[in-house]
């Protein structure tokens, strides 16, 4: 019997700035996502490992102590190559910054902070295959 029950698209947010984590979490929850958020990337990785198939996208800061966003994205992709990874940075995104690790590390997108919740939601939906017209409360298959 097919399972017709819809589930929320689950996101993992990682940023060492707790204020940013809170703002993103609240905004994305409001926009209908299920969100797990961490300021410690190692804890985020542990959470991901414990339920890797449940996440559809990881949104991570790039420059973090303990485990950088680049290192985290490598580990995430090793565990579940299907999950999308988006890196955030407050710095100018320069191609050289990533060419050192690409194409060995697959990152699906970048966003430059600060970014509004609407733009971020559009970016996420674009990556996980939903429409831009999705409204609050809608669910993702």
């Amino acid at each position, binding site marked *: 019997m097919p399972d017709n029950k819809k589930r929320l698209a689950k996101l993992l947010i990682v940023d*060492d700035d707790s204020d940013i984590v809170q703002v993103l979490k609240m905004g994305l929850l409001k926009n209908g996502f299920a969100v797990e958020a961490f300021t410690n990337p190692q804890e985020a990785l542990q959470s991901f490992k414990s339920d890797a198939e449940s996440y559809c996208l990881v949104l991570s800061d*790039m*420059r*973090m*102590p*303990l485990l*950088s966003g*680049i*290192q985290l994205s*490598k580990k995430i992709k090793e565990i579940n190559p299907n999950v999308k990874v988006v890196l955030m940075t*407050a*710095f100018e995104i320069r191609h*050289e*910054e990533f060419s*050192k*690790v690409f194409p060995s590390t697959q990152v699906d997108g970048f966003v430059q902070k600060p970014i509004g919740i609407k733009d971020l939601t559009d970016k996420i939906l674009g990556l996980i295959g939903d429409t831009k017209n999705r409204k609050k409360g809608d669910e993702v298959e």
Partner: protein
Amino acid sequence: MRTESEDNEESIQRWFDKEVEDGENTILVYPSTQTIRQIYSKYVKDQLVAARDQEVEGNNNNNNNNSRDTNKQSKSRIILIAPFYETVDSVKYQLSAFGVENVQGLIDSGSLVIADSFQSFFPDINDMKKLIDSLSERARKEGRAGVTAIVDVGFFFLFGGDSKAADLISYEASLAPKTQDGNVKGISCYHWGNYGTLTDADKEQITQGQKKKLLEVTESSNTTS
């Protein structure tokens, strides 16, 4: 030596002022971004704001006494802050929030330099040394007391992998524990989470057999060796 948390702020500043001498390259391990913000903010406030006040006083004395020596002695250090886990604008904001008045004025006068550590290390890690050398040269030309370079080395931990330690050790190896007649206090800043990933052998090489002074700051206390 371990110091209780009440003494933390004072002992850190004493380390900057008294224990780290001109010409020395040292290592500071910090527990959180908030802590390193407090450290550099207090240092800038103590060094530059006080020096600015002295310069005004010195200039007044010069007008009265026509003494060039007084003016030379009162010239402030150049402080370089090279953050990795926060932006240049964030550092400016933190300094202002800490009570450092007219941050832009300090930058414009050449006393304060804030540079993104990534852009100073990449693509050539020697670019950071070139930047510090140029500040050292300028400090001499301008008759300043010297340079304090507070450089976050988080860059070396960005990509991970086997090359991390090698590049870092190579960089630290290029910084002598002590240079005679040097005018730079070099402080390589490590987040504890990064420093903790290094092996004992790596740490031994980075400190050049513990010849470099090390200040390890924790949330509740700090340790020096």
